[in-house]
C-alpha cells in the first residue's frame, strides 16, 4: 500500500509542478485559434479608437479654440501628490484625485493630460493648486497662476509640480 500511495503522491506533486493543466476538451490548437481572433479584434478596435480620437479632436476641440493642460512631476520628486485643481479665468475646470498607480506613473516620468477645453484667442489666466504630503510628512498646499496667450493654434500648457514649486511652460 505504501508504494501505491507514494506513487500517487509523486504523481500529484508532479501534476502540481506542471504548468499546463487544462481540460481535455480544450486543445492547444483551439486556444491558439481563439487567441489569434482575439488579437485581430483588438487590432480592429484600436483602429476604431484612433479614428474616434481624431473625430473627437476636430468636433469637440478644434485647434483654433483648443487649450490642453499637462501635469508632470519634477525629476526625482518623491512627495505624495493627492489632488490637483485647475481654474481657468477664475472658473474651476477640473479637480483630480490621484490613485497610487497614477502617482507612480507620474513619478516614472509619465505626463497626464489633465484638461482639454476651448477658449477664445487672447490672454487667459490659469491657476493651479495642488495638495499632498512632503517626504517628511508635512502637508503641502501650493497655488500658482500664469497668463496664457491663446493664438490660432492649440494652446498647450505644461505644468510641472515639485514639492517647493509649480512651474509653467507654453509649448
Amino acid at each position, binding site marked *: 500500500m505504501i508504494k501505491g*500511495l507514494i506513487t500517487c503522491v509523486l504523481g500529484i506533486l508532479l501534476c502540481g509542478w506542471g504548468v499546463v493543466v487544462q481540460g481535455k476538451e480544450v486543445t492547444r490548437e483551439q486556444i491558439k485559434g481563439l487567441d489569434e481572433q482575439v488579437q485581430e479584434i483588438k*487590432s480592429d478596435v*484600436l483602429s476604431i479608437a484612433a479614428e474616434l480620437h481624431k473625430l473627437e479632436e476636430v468636433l469637440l476641440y478644434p485647434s483654433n479654440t483648443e487649450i490642453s493642460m499637462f501635469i508632470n512631476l519634477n525629476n526625482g520628486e518623491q512627495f505624495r501628490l493627492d489632488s490637483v485643481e485647475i481654474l481657468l479665468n477664475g472658473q474651476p475646470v477640473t479637480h483630480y484625485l490621484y490613485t497610487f498607480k497614477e502617482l507612480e506613473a507620474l513619478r516614472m*516620468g509619465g505626463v497626464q493630460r489633465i484638461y482639454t477645453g476651448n477658449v477664445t484667442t487672447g490672454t487667459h489666466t490659469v491657476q493651479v493648486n495642488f495638495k499632498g504630503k512632503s517626504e517628511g510628512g508635512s502637508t503641502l498646499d501650493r497655488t500658482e497662476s500664469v497668463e496664457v496667450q491663446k493664438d490660432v493654434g492649440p494652446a498647450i500648457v505644461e505644468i510641472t509640480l515639485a514639492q517647493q514649486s509649480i512651474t509653467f511652460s507654453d509649448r
Partner: protein
Amino acid sequence: MYRLALLLTGLLMVASPSMAAMTAITTAPKKLEDLYLGEVLYYAFQEEWFEAIARLDTELDQHHGLDQPDLDSLFPHIGIADFAVGDFELAYRMHRRAGRAISALINGNVPEELRNEAIFRLAKIYFQKDQPANALHAIERIDGAVPKKIRDDLAFLRSQILMLNGRFEDAAIILKGLENVKSLEGFAGYNLGIALFMVGETKEGLGHINFSGKIKSEDPLKLAIKDKSNLVLGDKLLGAEQFGTAKEVFDRVRLEGPFSNQALLGSGWAAASADRFEQALVPWSILVEREVTDRAVQEAMLALPYAYGKLGIYGKAALLYNSALNAFTAEIDKLGASIKSIREGAFLRALVREELKQDSTWVVKLRNLPEAPETYYLLDLMASHDFQESLKNYLDLEQLRRKLESWTTDLDAFEEMIAKRRAYYEPLLPEIDREFRLLDSRMRLRLEQRDRIQKRLEAMLVTPRPDYLATARERIVSERLDHLSKTLSAGGAAPPSEVKRSIQRLRGVLHWNIYTDYDRRLTEAFHNLHALNQDVEMLQQQYDSFVRKRQAATQSYEGYGDSIRLQRNRIVTSLEKVETLMARQGHMLENMAIHDLSETRKRLEQFQVKVLFAMADSYDRAARAEEPRAEEAKGGEQ
C-alpha cells in the same frame, strides 16, 4: 523520462526571474520633448495598454504624415516610440502585431544595439508563445554589440531557448557563466542543474540544484526558486531511496511559502519510507490542519491515519479515517455545487467584477462571493499559462465590449451635438454671409485706395510733387483764384492791375506755403500711411479671424455624417465579433474549470472508497487488538 520532460516544461516556465517584467521601457526620457509621448507613457506605466497603444498609434501616424517630421517634437524620441509600439503590443498580448512591429524595427535602419535588443524581444515573444524553433532562429540572428542592461537576460533567455530545443549541453555552458549573476541568483543554478540532469550528469546537476536550495535572499522570487529547488531535490532523493537526506532537504522549504504543503507531504513520506512513522506524524499532523481543498492536505488526510495504523494505534487511525471521509464527502458536495454554479454562468460573472481586480489575490477571493464556485481548487489551473492567457483574453474582450458600448453612446452624443449646431447656425449664416460680402467689397475698395496712395508717395520720393500734398483749403483757395482770374478776364477786358497783382501775390503765398512745407508734409503723409497700415493690419486680422470662425461654424456640423456612419458600422460589427468571441472564450474557460473540478471530484471519490476500506480495516484491527485484552479482563474476573 516522460515525467522529467513534463517536469522540465513546468520548471522552464517558472524558473525565470524576468518574465514578470514584460516591458523594456520602464522610465521616460530624461528630457521629454513631446508631451503626447509622455501621456502615452503615463498610461503604459499604469499597464493600461489599450490606451497607451491607441495614443501611440495616433502620435506615430501624425508624425509619419508630416512633410518635415524632423521638426516634430516626437522626432528626438522616435527610436523609443518605434520600440515602444512592439513592446506595448507584446504586453497587450498582441503577439502577431508586436512581432511585425519588432521585425520592422529589426529590418529598418537602426543602430546595432537597438536592433539586437529588438531581436531579443522578438525571441522572447516566440519563447513565450511556445515556438522553440522560431525563438532559436531569432536569437541566433543577434550579432555585434548588445546593450549592457540586457546582456545577462539575453544569455539566460538563450539558455532557456536551447533547453526548450533539447540542446541541454549548450544551455549548460551558458548557464555556468551566469551562476554568479546577482539578478539570476538561484534561477541560473536551478536551470543548470536541470540541464545537467538531462544530459545524464545527475550528481553534478543535483549539486547545482542543492546550491540553489541554499541561497540567502529576502527577495520573494528568489525565495520561491529556493523552495522549488529543495522540493525538486527532495523528490529526486526520495526516488533514489536516500530517505534521510530527502527529509532534510524537504524540511528546508519554508513553512509558509507556496510550496510548503508539498514539502510537508514529501517530508512525511521520506520519514515513512524509512519506516520512521513517528517522524512522519509531525509534518502530516501540521498539514491536515491546513486548507482542506489543497491536494497535499487531502493526501495527508489519508497518510496520517496510515502512519498511526503502522504504529499500531488503530483506534486513532480509524477516527482520522472517519474525519477524512467526512471532509471528502463535504468537498465532493462542494465540487458538485461549484460545477453547477459554473454551468449557470456564475464563474464568468464573478471573473469580470471590477472590485476584485483591485486586489492581486482576487482569484482566491472569488470564493467569498455568493454563488461563486470554489476557486481554491482552480488555483493550479488558474496559474497555468493557457488558462491565464485565456482569462486575460476574456477580460480584454470584456474591456473592449465596454469601450465599444460607450463609443456607441458617444456617437449618439456627437450626432445630437451636430444637429444642434446645424439648427443654430443654418438660419443665421445666410444673413451673416450677405453682410460679410458687402463689408468685403468695401474693404477691397479701401485697400485699393491705400495701395494707390502708397505707390504715389513712393513715387514722390523720386519725383517731388508738392501740389499732391496741398491741403483741401489750399486747393479751394487755388481754385477760387483761378475762377477770379477767369471772371476778370471775361469778354477780353484786361483786369485791373491792382487786382492782378493781388491775385499773383496770393498765388505766390500759396505756392510758397506748399513748396516750403513739402518735406514736413511728405513726412507726415508717410506717418499717416504707417498708421493706416497698422489699422489695415488689424482689419486684416479681424477679417482672417472672421473667415476662420465662419469656416469653423460650417465645419462644426458639416462633413461628419459619413465618418460617424462608418464608425458606427465598424462598432456594431466589432461588438458582434467581441460578443461572439467572449461567448467562445468564456465557454472555453468554463470547460477548463469544469474539467479540472470534475477530475478533482473523481480523485476525491477514489479517496473516499480507499478511506472506507482503510477505515473498516482499522476498526477490525482495533477490535482485534481489543479482543485479547477483553479476554484477559474476562479471565481475571472469572
